[in-house]
């Protein structure tokens, strides 16, 4: 287990950089994590997904997969890949400070 410093706060993360304690995440950490994970500057569309990830995690205890995001977030699969080219569910989960969603679809 290692730690990272985002927005001046030290937080525990796993070897892939995902938060191990989502409770320690704050909005102002997102921009820094996004830059670090290659997503670049966050737009309002990115934030739609980040907030959705937080909400899903709070309700279900796990983040949605790309398929679930495409069906329920209001952002199409095509746009999801434009926003997060290197894997929407994975990157959005990392930026939103929640564990990496597991699932094959």
């Amino acid at each position, binding site marked *: 287990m290692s730690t990272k410093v985002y927005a001046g706060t030290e937080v525990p993360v796993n070897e892939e950089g995902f938060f191990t304690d989502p409770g320690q995440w704050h909005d102002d950490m997102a921009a820094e994590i996004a830059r670090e994970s290659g997503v670049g500057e966050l737009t309002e569309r990115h934030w739609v997904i980040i907030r959705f990830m937080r909400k899903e995690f709070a309700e279900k205890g796990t983040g949605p997969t790309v398929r*679930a995001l495409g069906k329920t977030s209001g952002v199409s699969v095509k746009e999801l890949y434009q926003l997060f080219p290197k894997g929407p569910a994975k990157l959005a989960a990392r930026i939103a400070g929640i564990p990496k969603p597991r699932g094959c679809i």
Partner: protein
Amino acid sequence: MSDKIEKISIIVSKGSLEGIYPALIMANGARAEGIDANLFFTFFGLDAVHKARHEHIKLATVGNPGLHLATWAGGLPGVSTVMTRYLSHKMDELDIPPIPEFVEMIADTGAGLYACQASVDLFGLSKEDFIDQVQDIITVGEFYELAAGGQIIFT
């Protein structure tokens, strides 16, 4: 050489439900991990992207010992349809999309979909027979060019 997979090209050669799904799941899963993916449909695998056929992909109930069903029973009329319906229902419960929807989704992820020239010629098909997501009909040589630098998976 990096030990991380950066690109995969998957050959889909079978036209049965159990022949097509693994390739689709692997292609979709690759894109979800940020891995580039190409799908190359050849021989009966072309049915997965055939406009008139992709909604009617069936589970092979004959010559499929994994089903633990007597061969004679698997060959009875309607058995394949019933088994396919049962499996589709189970898949729906797990939120695994039907083949047409799944293929469309995979195209939306930015994966490349291609049909095999030799098989298209063999079956007397043309570009119009395939769904719009099929980018091109390509030769085996062109496939290798596309696959260059990545891993190739044959299913």
